[in-house]
């Protein structure tokens, strides 16, 4: 479980995150939704440690990330898998090497064990016979799957997905959604998804955090969205044509 408490972040004079608190639950697909520029990407960057908030706390199963020293932070980060909006695969490495990368860096596995684990992860995301291809030679959907395979290679406790469906066709988007949902349930991990895609939200969203103009405007289960009475949230849903 990830607990966010009173997180504030400013860039220059712009107050990007305003006293945000939220709970992100284990074994659930936790969605952070909101308009572009609303602060949800910054919030996710704060959670994974790429941006440091001025105040507040972000606790990973009792470990306050912001109060940890460098080595302790690295230990938390080893429990984090992340799927980037643009996949962020290493373009000088092929598919197999990309998925093997965290294993080679952080485990003492033999080469056979690494390849076995890589093939398991690639099989889990339904990618076979692509091991030797480079990211530039595979499709956007395949890249996302490789990104997921790399993210789960070390059995993370927390999976962060930044716009997992961006740039994908609707069919591939649903496949990726199902994959993330299945992995979350199968490994009982805390999954945090940052998206605009309301279809994804209604397919697999469980816990929803709505960020508007840098502040949290609503938090709850998806069934409660329609009855939330929150004008901004309802306007956001209507604008999404869902």
């Amino acid at each position: 479980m990830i607990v966010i408490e009173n997180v504030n972040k400013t860039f220059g004079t712009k107050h990007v995150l305003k006293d945000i608190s939220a709970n992100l639950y284990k074994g659930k697909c936790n969605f952070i939704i909101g308009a572009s520029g609303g602060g949800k990407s910054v919030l996710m960057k704060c959670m994974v440690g790429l941006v440091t908030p001025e105040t507040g706390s972000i606790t990973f199963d009792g470990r306050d990330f912001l109060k940890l020293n460098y080595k302790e932070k690295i230990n938390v980060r080893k429990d984090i898998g992340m799927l980037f909006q643009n996949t962020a695969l290493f373009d000088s490495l092929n598919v197999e090497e990309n998925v093997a990368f965290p294993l080679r860096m952080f485990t003492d596995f033999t080469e056979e064990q690494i390849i076995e684990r890589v093939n398991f992860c690639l099989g889990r995301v339904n990618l076979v016979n692509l091991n030797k291809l480079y990211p530039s030679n595979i499709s956007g959907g395949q890249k996302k799957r490789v990104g997921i395979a790399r993210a789960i290679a070390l059995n993370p406790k927390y999976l962060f997905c930044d716009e997992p469906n961006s740039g994908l066709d609707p069919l591939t988007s649903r496949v990726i959604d199902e994959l993330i949902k299945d992995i979350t349930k199968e490994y009982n991990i805390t999954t945090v998804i940052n998206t605009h895609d309301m279809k994804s939200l209604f397919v697999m969203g469980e816990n929803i955090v709505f960020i508007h103009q840098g502040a949290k405007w609503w938090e709850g289960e998806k069934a409660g969205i329609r009855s939330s009475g929150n004008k901004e949230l309802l306007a956001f849903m209507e604008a999404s044509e869902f």
Partner: protein
Amino acid sequence: MRFFQHFGEYLLFLKAVFTKPEKGKIFIKQIFTESNNIGVGSFAIISLISTFIGAVSTIQIGYQLVSGILPDYLIGRIVRDSNILEFAPTVTALVLAGKVGSNIASEIGTMKVTEQVDALEIMGINAANFTSLAKIVSGVITIPMLVLYAMMLSLVGGALSGWMSGIISVESFVKGLRTDFMGYNVVFALTKAYTFSFLITSVSAFQGFRTQGGALEVGESSTKAVVYSCMSIIFFDYIISQLMLFK
């Protein structure tokens, strides 16, 4: 004021770079790969440039020493000293600032704008160390070797051009090369080579690492890497010459 801010950022970057690599085996592999890219990859261009610089310097020195009063072999001696002291280390470094520096900056810059650097950080890897240390170490190993190679080839080029143009015979040129040879000059040249190689690789890696934006900014970083590397090479060329030649 901005210069000091950038210089401070550069020092902090170096502090992050010079830490223990996460995995020694991977680091060693990176060093071999980067040494191949930087050293072997620059072999052809350095061969061409150093040969022609030696050739041109022989012709120009021959042109200036046509009085008939001074012995021929002096051409060989001046070509030797000017190439060892200045042309081989400095011109090689300037050429490599263009070739290797832009390559390093654009490679790391592209990793930065495509979130590959963020991916490393999130995995718990020191991205500055992982992306840059092997490049810096490989540069410091291979660039001085290229400078030694450039020294040798420039003298060969000088001898050939002197012989082909009839300015000086090979025997006289070799006599000049062997007259009053000072090993200290090679030490001086290698000191410059080690300094320049560190500057080229670290300044370029820093420029790549601070890239923000997209393709346009990667291009800008690459250009800045070359310009700042060249400026620092020229500056340190002066400093080292002052310190080592006039103690």
